[in-house]
């Protein structure tokens, strides 16, 4: 799959597009489920304009991809945060998982149409998505180089055969459920992002594979705003910076109170990364240094790696067997075994009293929640 689409996107980046194309009227403060793209009538998107929207200023915009082309679902997920922080949300009704998913065509059409209709802040465009939609968001951002300031990836990391590198220009916020089958991707991704110095946050919420709860999206958009302030892309709001720092410290202390030493350490490290230059991070810096010397975070990190290995062990045989269906090489006895394995995983996950084990079993079982 070729993700390069700058040739199409760049011409529409120019300000004259906005100046020469009057914005279509659209209601503010409510989701519009379908706006047909003027340049490609096969493509449409759901839209949310914040209730404070006016044509007198430029607005941050986030393009969101649902794995099943449910634009309104995607927009609804982000809506509350977008209203609070005054962002425009656009969700493709066409981009879907699979070989005929049409994500590039969908992204190009939405991109062109929204640049024409609305006064968008060119330095503050973002991609986001869930599951396959998250991979689409990252792939588009990698393909278009500097066309977006950030990516919010929910429930999946980078696309296959892609990873962050020194040319990665966007900041990265991820949200993943602790029982999500893609959780291990983020265990792998974290050290790479650290090594490259790419600004990132990985927020883990309680839940399986699916859209993150509204509070995670609130955090994501707020984090993107803070990142924009740090880079001079948005005016600094000292009160908001202080409030966010204070909330993050409360979160880190809460994790310590629950003896989630590893998560607490990561929270302090994230505070230090995000707020250096914006606020006094001495408290977070000192506490991170203390926790780094303690045994518990290292022990929990070792356990996290063991959990990933266990999930891989549980999955490797059955997953390969399932792939044999397509080649016609799976006999009915193995099919029966496979069915039993799936039922057993479900049964064991529901029965175990060990929370760590339950999460590993849930990740391997991977209920799509349909």
């Amino acid at each position, binding site marked *: 799959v070729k993700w390069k689409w700058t040739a199409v996107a760049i011409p529409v980046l120019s300000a004259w597009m906005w100046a020469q194309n009057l914005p279509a009227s659209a209601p503010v403060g409510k989701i519009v489920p379908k706006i047909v793209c003027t340049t490609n009538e096969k493509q449409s998107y759901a839209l949310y304009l914040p209730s404070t929207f006016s044509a007198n200023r430029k607005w941050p915009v986030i393009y969101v991809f649902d794995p099943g082309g449910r634009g309104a679902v995607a927009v609804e997920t982000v809506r509350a945060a977008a209203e609070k922080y005054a962002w425009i949300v656009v969700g493709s009704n066409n981009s879907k998982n699979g070989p005929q998913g049409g994500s590039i065509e969908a992204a190009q059409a939405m991109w062109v149409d929204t640049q024409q209709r609305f006064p968008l802040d060119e330095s503050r465009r973002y991609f986001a998505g869930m599951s396959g939609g998250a991979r689409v968001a990252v792939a588009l951002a990698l393909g278009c180089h500097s066309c977006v300031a950030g990516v919010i990836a929910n429930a999946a990391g980078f696309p296959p055969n892609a990873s962050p590198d020194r040319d990665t220009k966007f900041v990265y916020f991820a949200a993943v459920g602790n029982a999500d089958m893609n959780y291990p991707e983020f265990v792998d991704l974290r050290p790479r992002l650290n090594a490259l110095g790419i600004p990132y946050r990985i927020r883990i919420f309680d839940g399986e594979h699916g859209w993150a709860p509204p509070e995670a999206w609130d955090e994501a958009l707020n984090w993107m705003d803070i990142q924009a302030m740090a880079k001079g892309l948005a005016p600094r709001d000292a009160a908001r910076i202080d409030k966010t720092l204070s909330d993050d410290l409360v979160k880190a202390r809460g994790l310590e109170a629950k003896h989630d030493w590893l998560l607490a350490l990561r929270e302090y490290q994230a505070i230090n990364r995000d707020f250096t230059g914006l606020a006094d991070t001495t408290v977070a810096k000192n506490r991170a240094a203390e926790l780094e010397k303690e045994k518990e975070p290292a022990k929990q990190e070792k356990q996290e790696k063991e959990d990933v290995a266990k999930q891989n062990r549980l999955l490797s045989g059955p997953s390969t067997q*399932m792939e044999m269906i397509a080649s016609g090489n*799976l006999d009915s006895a193995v099919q029966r075994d496979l069915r039993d394995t799936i039922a057993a995983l479900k049964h064991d996950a529901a029965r175990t009293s060990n929370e760590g084990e339950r999460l590993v079993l849930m990740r391997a079982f991977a209920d799509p929640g349909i």
Partner: protein
Amino acid sequence: LLIQAFESSQRSLEQKDFRDALRYLDLAAAGSDNLGWVHFQRARAYAGSGDKNHMLDELKLSLAADFHPPTGLDANEFAAYREDPQFQALNSEWRKASNP
């Protein structure tokens, strides 16, 4: 594993590989809490492979499990049965359930 079964079944249906779709759906049924969805997808696979009796059985099971998306029977796989009286009767029941 369950997501792999679900997604593979959808890919097989898209590619009109109905035999494989049924095998993936068999696996999905072993773990899914939404058997109505599984029955409906099986009905699509049977419809596509020309097995009317199994298709009708699966649609009835889908209805019984309270899974009846309003435009579900508009799927391409059911096109060949639109004039069939048994399918029409079921379609009418389906629409009633979708729009009580």
